[in-house]
């Protein structure tokens, strides 16, 4: 009986420790202290990257509609605006950046949807690394297309 109590107590203590550590990792004060970046895990980086790429994409959405709105002025104004912008190397480079941001947000978003459905929770760190690698591969492969015609 005494032995059983000791085992139960030990198990309960371990359970309490694991609960405490789990709740600590979900504590907002700690999670959002970016000064602790060296201690961040893969999931935390995924969260930060998703948030950063989200901010960029929503900012771009407003800019995109503003540029497309030149069509309200005249068809010529729209065509001239788009073709002038596309003739600038800096715009093409920014577009590559936008592609990187969009592809990562899409792939990590897909990862999050699966995690929400309870699929792949155990390998969430590996799926984050896969999202990063795939983003890099797609962006590098797209560079020639995005820079086509800008040099002459």
């Amino acid at each position: 009986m005494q032995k059983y109590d000791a085992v139960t107590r030990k198990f309960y203590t371990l359970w309490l420790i694991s609960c405490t550590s789990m709740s600590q990792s979900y504590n907002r004060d700690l999670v959002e202290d970016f000064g602790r970046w060296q201690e961040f895990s893969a999931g935390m980086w995924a969260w930060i990257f998703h948030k950063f790429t989200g901010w960029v994409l929503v900012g771009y959405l407003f800019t995109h509609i503003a540029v497309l709105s030149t069509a309200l002025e005249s068809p010529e104004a729209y065509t001239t605006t788009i073709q002038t912008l596309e003739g600038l190397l800096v715009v093409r480079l920014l577009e590559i950046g936008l592609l990187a941001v969009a592809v990562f947000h899409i792939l990590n978003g897909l990862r999050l949807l699966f995690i929400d459905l309870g699929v792949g929770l155990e390998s969430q760190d590996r799926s984050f690394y896969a999202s990063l690698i795939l983003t890099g591969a797609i962006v590098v492969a797209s560079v020639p297309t995005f820079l086509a015609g800008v040099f002459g």
Partner: protein
Amino acid sequence: MAERYTSFRRGGRRWLWQRITAAFLIIVLAFHFFLLHFVHHANEVTFGMTQGRMQELAYFSLMVLFLITATFHGVNGVYNALINQGVTGKKKTMMKLVLSAASLLLIVQGLRTAVVWADGVPI
């Protein structure tokens, strides 16, 4: 048990709509990028080409839905990020109003542009 960690209100629908729009946007954003950078190149875009696409009802309605879902998903994401950073009370209500107004403006401006491209609603 880990404590419940989310910016969404328990029982609220914003969480679900953020996921539904995400699933839609994953496909449509990839399609949009592919069509306008790989099938057609961005530097070849003219008003006439855009008009040709927008005068098809299927494309027009897809783009309108894209505008609405992207605006909701993006602005709802910003709202959540602000709640995450600890915005509460009056500030939260103000942010909600500002973001709702910005969303409305963006959608109206996008719709106006879409209608000009298509030269009316292509029904």
